[in-house]
């Protein structure tokens, strides 16, 4: 029998519990999206080979590398000889195509999770068993934040990296059929590792940026008796609607929207948008976000503990 359990092992167990409960959303969805995207790219590539088309032509709006009535070989030769910056920009947008679907899905899952997680355990009365074990409210709430914002977001990022690696491999395999330099055409301009690094970094900075929003949902999940979405949304509407009515615009809505929607996930602007957004986040507003997020998380911990069964 154990005599002590280290805080690290305990937290691991608590996070694993969240993964068991939300297995479909946290594990199967990123895996499913990865498989879906992988087969989509494979299908487009194979179809392109049979139709003498560069497979990425249909994917990157405004960056078509194959003109009408041009063969795939001619188009790729012309693309290979284009300036490095052009190729860099092209691959940047190409790889970022996979980001909105994956990270947008993660964002929706995070909203659902934070709204429901504490509410659901009161509703199905499983709180009775969780409260019968030596786990504090602080440990419970922190484990939920870690499970979603670190582990699950990490799994979605892993899925995104896997799909980008797969896209690179597919494009290299496709390139083998043509007389172009794989390094100069596909690898060097794609800034591959750098982009992955900035995506991962940007995602975790974004988690701090959106912390007040997620913590607000968690706070409501900790106390509402029913309809957590309505309770979370109503106070914001009560503040925003009169503001719009009186002044024609809403500063509150702008602030909420800025911290609720990770807009950098719009991949159409590629790395510049990641860098730009990361840069815009590293301001005093990020510090305020962290403070507000921590405050609301503390409130969720307190109310979750004191809430009678």
């Amino acid at each position: 029998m154990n005599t002590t359990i280290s805080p690290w092992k305990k937290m691991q167990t608590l996070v694993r519990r969240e993964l068991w409960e939300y297995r479909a959303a946290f594990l199967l969805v990123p895996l499913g999206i990865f498989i879906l995207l992988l087969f989509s790219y494979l299908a487009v590539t194979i179809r392109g080979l049979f139709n003498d088309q560069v497979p990425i032509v249909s994917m990157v709006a405004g960056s078509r590398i194959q003109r009408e009535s041009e063969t795939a070989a001619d188009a790729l030769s012309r693309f290979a000889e284009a300036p490095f910056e052009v190729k860099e920009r092209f691959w940047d947008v190409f790889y970022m195509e996979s980001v909105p679907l994956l990270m947008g899905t993660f964002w929706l899952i995070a909203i659902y999770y934070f709204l429901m997680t504490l509410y659901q355990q009161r509703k199905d009365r499983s709180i009775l068993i969780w409260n019968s074990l030596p786990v504090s409210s602080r440990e419970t709430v922190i484990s939920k934040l870690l499970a979603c914002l670190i582990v699950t977001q990490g799994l979605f990022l892993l899925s995104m990296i896997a799909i980008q690696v797969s896209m690179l491999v597919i494009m290299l395999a496709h390139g083998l059929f043509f007389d172009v330099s794989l390094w100069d055409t596909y690898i060097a301009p794609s800034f591959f590792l750098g982009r992955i690094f900035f995506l991962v970094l940007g995602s975790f900075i974004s988690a701090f940026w959106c912390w007040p929003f997620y913590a607000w949902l968690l706070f409501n999940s900790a106390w509402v008796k029913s309809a957590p979405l309505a309770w979370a949304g109503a106070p914001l509407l009560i503040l925003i609607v009169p503001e719009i009515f009186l002044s024609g615009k809403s500063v509150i809505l702008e602030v909420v929207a800025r911290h609720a929607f990770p807009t950098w996930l719009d991949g159409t602007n590629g790395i510049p948008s990641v860098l730009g957004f990361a840069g815009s986040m590293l301001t005093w507003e990020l510090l305020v976000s962290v403070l507000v997020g921590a405050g609301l998380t503390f409130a969720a911990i307190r109310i979750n503990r004191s809430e009678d069964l």
Partner: protein
Amino acid sequence: MEPVIKAEHLRKFYGDTPAMDDISFTVEKGSIVGLIGPNGAGKTSTLKAILGLTSFAGSLEVLGKDPRLNRDQLMEEVCFIADVGVLPKWLRVANAIDYIEGVHPRFSRERAMVLLGETSIGMDKKVSELSKGMVTQLHLALILAIDVKLLVLDEPTLGLDILYQKSFFDRLLNDYFDNETSIIISTHQVEEVKTILTHLMFIDEGKIRLDMPMETVSETFFEVLVAADQRDAAMALHPVSVRKVLGNQSMLFENVAREKLQALGEVHVPAISDLFVAKIRQTRGVSS
């Protein structure tokens, strides 16, 4: 010896309704206390106070700790079953064991496996795939595998049929109780638990109406099926309650010598449920 629970002047009100109205009691090591009361009497509030799950006024020490301040440490030595049907449906049996092993320092995986080995519950099954009886067995196996000093049970068998109720309490007594552990049970199924109790506590309207060891109960209360010609003599002894049984009168007496009562009719120790009804009616001033 320090009592396991020492409560003094506990108070909690929901509006004007008392849940705990200046109640004091102690629970000694190795005792099994039945906390009996009607709905809304304050049983659950009292148990929640013991577990640090609700706010209250007064002084309360559980295993030497104030549950309001030291709940997390306390829960390493206290186990709690509120309802055997609350294991979440998504949980797999193997996950449940992993989870409790990962958070509870006094959980024995080996013991849990032995207990589960006596059932037909598969490790890969989800709770949603188990029958209600199996969920009860699983919950009990998980709890019985935790070596704690105090077990708190709040209506643990509510909703179970009589077979599972009996099996639950039999197992609790045979597999768990070892004179080192104290158990406090709140239940409506008083007759089901009477054989395992060492102490009896009645609560009503937030007040403790009776608190005594079971052996004292059997020395203090007697029920007499009073012979028709002894009715006036019996009434002179101020019975706690009088009720009609098949045309005769059954009277319940408190603190009247058995020898004196034997002259009135057939004497026996009252059922807990009859004693409970009599005491609650007496304290509420309801005429029997």
